[in-house]
């Protein structure tokens, strides 16, 4: 690559290497979002349309990861509660929901979507308090996207005769769903909307660190007049999840979470006739060629790995850069992450919020330590972090090779591993050399190369000259150990029905 000043011969005296100053000349005052999240002090289970106390009488605390304060108490479900939830879901399916015409189901879904939009600000603040993600993301992405999923599937509910041309579709019955903590409300919408549109009823368990927006959505389900038992929420940790997944009633299990847990589920369901979709981990390659628009690629890399503190299963956590531009891209990345604002998630100017839990912070810290130990070169900006709460600086590792742990294992945090490649084939080989296959990104000015890469990359989603773009109409899911089944679009609906 020629230098930018190829035509200029400088006669100026030598001076120190020019650097940009990202200081505090113009520091922004705090700008916290002030909408009331309307939290209760205690949240019960949501079974058969009612909030009910857990049979154990036990509750656990939900912590705000931004300051370690207790937000609310959440009911601790037991196997008996899970069973009650399934009985309610089965009765609702047999007596009401399974018999309701699609156009009637659509009305409920439209109502849920609109009620969620009405209370968008309140839900955004609750989501940020509960999970630590920056308010600008919960406000501009999580909540509107969740509503969009309900709208999209509401539109399908009365058109299901056309979803599989030449075939007719029927609901499965009761489905059991378990969702992760990285996008609590959005994953909830991804799971609920297609299941309900198809005519199934649901028992769902949110992650134990992020149950609040799920239970707030239960209020909306009540306000929407959804018949009792169609949707049931049980809260708690892994044992509750196991009870949800191993119960005899559900005809289908849908799980989003770690590959580790996915494998356990797969083993326990082997031999049953339950349908299954798993959306698991990822270690996506974001591939930058030397002809790419570099500043926009850098923006996409930043968006790919630092969005939601890197707690994204499709995060572009491995950056593969073409050797001729590797140095340039690294320099640009460093300057870019110097202006990322890490801190109070409720501040409207925060770019990177709090790590979801102490446990996750510990995992990220350990992975980063292994990267340093294995000899990769680390860069972190010098930004100040709040004294309380779980925070981690955006981190770049350069000089990473395929054998490093940080290049192979999912970190699920704001940590980018940078590798280089020389040829297209090498890029493809390195990108596919992973146990995962959820997503990938390609940055190049050359259209034909995009087509070639998208054919050869073994990943459920390949983004070209962009990253982390989602739409309810676009199916999402993985290859290999990233799981199977699709969510969103026509394909996602087909995973919630039987074809007749």
């Amino acid at each position: 690559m020629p230098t930018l000043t190829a035509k200029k011969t400088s006669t100026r005296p030598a001076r120190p290497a020019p650097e940009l100053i990202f200081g505090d000349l113009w520091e922004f005052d705090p700008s916290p979002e002030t909408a009331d999240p309307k939290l209760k002090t205690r949240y019960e289970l949501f079974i058969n349309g009612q909030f009910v106390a857990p049979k154990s009488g036990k509750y656990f605390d939900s912590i705000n990861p931004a300051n370690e304060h207790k937000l609310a108490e959440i009911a601790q479900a037991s196997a008996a509660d899970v069973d009650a939830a399934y009985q309610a879901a089965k009765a609702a399916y047999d007596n009401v929901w399974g018999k309701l015409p699609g156009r009637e189901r659509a009305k409920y879904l439209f109502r849920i979507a609109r009620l969620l939009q009405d209370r968008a600000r309140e839900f955004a603040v609750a989501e940020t308090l509960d999970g630590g993600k920056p308010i600008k993301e919960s406000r501009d992405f999580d909540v509107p996207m969740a509503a969009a999923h309900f709208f999209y599937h509401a539109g399908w509910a009365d058109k299901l005769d056309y979803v599989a041309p030449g075939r007719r579709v029927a609901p499965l019955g009761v489905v059991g769903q378990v969702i992760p903590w990285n996008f609590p409300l959005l994953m909830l919408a991804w799971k609920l909307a297609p299941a309900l549109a198809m005519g199934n009823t649901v028992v769902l368990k949110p992650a134990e660190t992020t149950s609040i927006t799920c239970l707030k959505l239960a209020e909306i389900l009540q306000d929407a007049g959804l018949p009792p038992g169609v949707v049931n929420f049980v809260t708690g940790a892994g044992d509750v999840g196991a009870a949800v997944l191993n119960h005899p009633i559900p005809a289908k299990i849908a799980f989003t979470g770690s590959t580790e847990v996915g494998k356990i589920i797969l083993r326990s369901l082997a031999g049953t006739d339950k349908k299954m979709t798993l959306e698991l981990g990822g270690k996506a390659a974001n591939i930058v060629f030397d002809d790419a628009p570099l500043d926009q690629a850098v923006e996409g890399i930043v968006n790919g790995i630092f969005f939601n503190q890197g707690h994204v299963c499709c995060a572009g956590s491995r950056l593969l850069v073409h050797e001729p531009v590797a140095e340039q891209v690294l320099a640009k990345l460093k300057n870019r992450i110097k202006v990322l604002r890490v801190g109070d998630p409720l501040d409207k100017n925060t770019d990177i919020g709090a790590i979801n839990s102490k446990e996750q912070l510990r995992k990220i810290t350990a992975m980063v330590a292994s990267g340093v130990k294995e000899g990769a070169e680390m860069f972190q900006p010098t930004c100040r972090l709040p004294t309380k709460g779980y925070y981690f600086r955006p981190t770049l590792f350069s000089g990473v090779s395929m054998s490093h742990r940080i290049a192979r294992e999912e970190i699920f945090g704001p940590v980018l591993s940078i590798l280089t490649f020389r040829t297209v084939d090498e890029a493809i080989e390195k990108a596919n050399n992973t146990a995962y296959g959820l997503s990938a990104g390609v940055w190049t000015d050359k259209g034909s190369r995009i087509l070639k890469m998208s054919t050869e990359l073994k990943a459920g989603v390949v983004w070209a000259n962009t990253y982390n773009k989602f739409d309810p109409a676009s199916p999402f899911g993985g290859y290999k150990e990233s799981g199977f089944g699709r969510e969103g679009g026509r394909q996602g609906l087909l995973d919630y029905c039987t074809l007749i």
Partner: protein
Amino acid sequence: MLARSPHAALRRLFDEVGPVDAVGIEERVAKYGTRSIKKTSKLWGLKLAASMVDLTTLEGKDTPGKVASLCQKALRPHDPDLGVPQVAAVCVYPAMVKHARKALGRETAVRIASVATAFPSGQAPLKTRLAEVKAAVADGADEIDMVINRGAFLSGEFGVMQDEIRAVVEACGQATLKVILEVSELETYDNIRAASFLAMRVIREGDFIKTSTGKTSLNATLGNNQVMIEAIRDYYLDTGVSIAMKPAGGIRTAKQALTFLVAIKETLGDAWLNNARYRFGASALLNDLIRQIEKENTGAYQAPYYFSEATESY
């Protein structure tokens, strides 16, 4: 044969300076608008923006009287107790420079900028354009805003375009030069980036590149501002030469100005947050800045007739 075509020349230039993805640029700049600037940081930003204004009148009906009142506004934009700084410069046609100098006097920090070189089209013989520049400087202009030869750029005659800029640099003498790319006529972000580099390579440290004349349909936007300041950043990191930037036309509100300043803060950093490195070519903007400063100081908006948005009322 093909390799000598204008298209091939542009192609080589793009290969050299790198392409720009329009969708990506627009996504980037949309994030600047979501920055929430409150209280003291807002007041600081508003005053900074006021100090960066090139208070402009460029009309066929300009008179010495109009220019004199514009100069008065530049010197004392508002009640000094409010802390509104003087603007950076007044910007007038060459024929008005001597009237501006008379109104401002010699002992002033407010500079006089003049749009020479057959503004806005630039379609006059080079000799005529250079004579215009020299006359404006002789009459007391501190800064010259020139237009590039877009025709030469679009037909791949980069040498012609650069030679003309060099000639104007020489004609400027001590005066600062601002090179107007007229982005709406270059059309693509790729072209804007390429033209920025061509201009930067022949101007001096502290000279400006500027978006537009304000006389075409599309003027300064966050998008073309971003492409140009990224070019300035890349050029600076490569050579150590700091080029200044002036978006002009279309920035009418304080909120817009703050968003442009956020772009500077996050792309070029603190060294560009002053009026030697960044300017706003605007007229209506100043009164909206003053209105917002007054609101920050008093906690209440003044009645709309306190601050007119029409430059006629200066």
